[in-house]
């Protein structure tokens, strides 16, 4: 049974057909890598797959249940990482993640969040406002969700490697491998070449005029 699958999806924005009749499926331990030039519709596809936007035609299912009618089950098992990081710049990384965990019904203690942040190379920055962190550091804070939501078996990541340094990329890749080893599925977009130690499937989107 596939984790997340899209059936005959199509989407158009401002009278331009981005993609048409795309079907995809992510099995447990699967990494699906969506490639394509700027404007090809990668982000639109990702947002349709997590349920933030609706496709023009087609449907998305999580474990064979339509995500429209079972969104609570699906979202309970999902981590979404988008272009917008979802961090309030007035709050500190610790406060941001604490609120996020509570809203996503993850019970963690503060010292666990701090240890995850430390693992991500943010030692000493836990209680500063997010606005005072660099772009890469802010992305690391947002990525900490992948370490905190352990019961999530589906990750949907939109360009997770952007603005990360070499060490950050290595950390994230290691985490991806760990996640798939546990049977989790990943859908991601990226412009970098993925050199993962696990097999990766690719889906290429083309820019249509």
């Amino acid at each position: 049974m596939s984790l997340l699958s899209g059936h005959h999806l199509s989407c158009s924005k401002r009278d331009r057909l981005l993609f048409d009749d795309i079907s995809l499926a992510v099995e447990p331990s699967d990494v699906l890598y969506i490639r394509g030039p700027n404007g090809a519709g990668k982000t639109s596809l990702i947002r349709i797959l997590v349920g933030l936007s609706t496709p023009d035609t087609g449907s998305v299912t999580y474990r064979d249940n339509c995500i429209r009618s079972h969104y609570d089950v699906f979202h309970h098992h999902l981590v979404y990482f988008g272009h917008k990081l979802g961090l309030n710049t007035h709050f500190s990384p610790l406060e941001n993640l604490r609120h996020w965990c509570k809203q996503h019904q993850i019970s963690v203690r503060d010292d666990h969040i701090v240890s995850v942040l430390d693992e991500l190379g943010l030692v000493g920055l836990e209680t500063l406002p997010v606005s005072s962190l660099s772009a890469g550091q802010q992305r690391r804070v947002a990525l900490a969700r992948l370490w905190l939501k352990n019961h999530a078996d589906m990750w949907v990541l939109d360009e997770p490697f952007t603005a990360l340094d070499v060490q950050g990329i290595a950390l994230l890749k290691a985490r991806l491998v760990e996640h798939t080893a546990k049977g989790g599925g990943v859908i991601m977009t990226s412009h970098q070449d993925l050199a993962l130690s696990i097999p990766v499937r690719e889906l290429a989107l083309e820019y249509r005029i």
Partner: protein
Amino acid sequence: MTHPLISLFQRDLALAYKQRAELLQPIMFFLLVITLFPLGIGPGPETLQKVGPGVIWVAALLSSLLGMDRLFREDFQDGSLEQLMLSGASLSWVVLVKVAAHWLSTTLPLLILSPILALFLNLTEAMYVSLIATLLLGTPILSLIGAIAVALTVGLQRGGVLLSLLLLPIFIPLLIFATSAVDAAALSLPYNGQLGIIAALFLLALALSPAATAFALRVSQN
């Protein structure tokens, strides 16, 4: 473990506290309008008493419009709203909690200030009681209806002007009933009817607004 909605409520209040300088802006506006009015139209006690309730209501309306944008805009722009929509919580409840936190942090201070302002405008005690009653019932309507309009305009670059244009016509009936209740109180007449209509408007807004706002937010995400 606290319920996700309670923790959202706490988060919004904590955020409001962190941004208290920004929250002060509508309050200052409210105070300034009402202190400038007696200077503008002359300090005659009868004149002030006549225009007072209307002035307070109009000022409350406009200052609530000033702070309305804060309801969803920041969360929309930084992506917190996306994460919230993917948290598995019902979006209608999320909206209701956010509106409640917003009302508590932006409108309640206005109500707390209103006794002093009533003094400025020479309102009698009966008028003041009816004014507070209409404000208590009426300002949540502003927040609830405002939430729909904010959700609709949140994706736009310059949503503020559109927001006021959308909302002011809807707020006019509320203003008419509220000021007529205070006028009735000034003449020592019963004003249960006006209050009843405002309460009905409030219940209607409470029932419809969360679902409509949730829908508008989903459309804005598209």
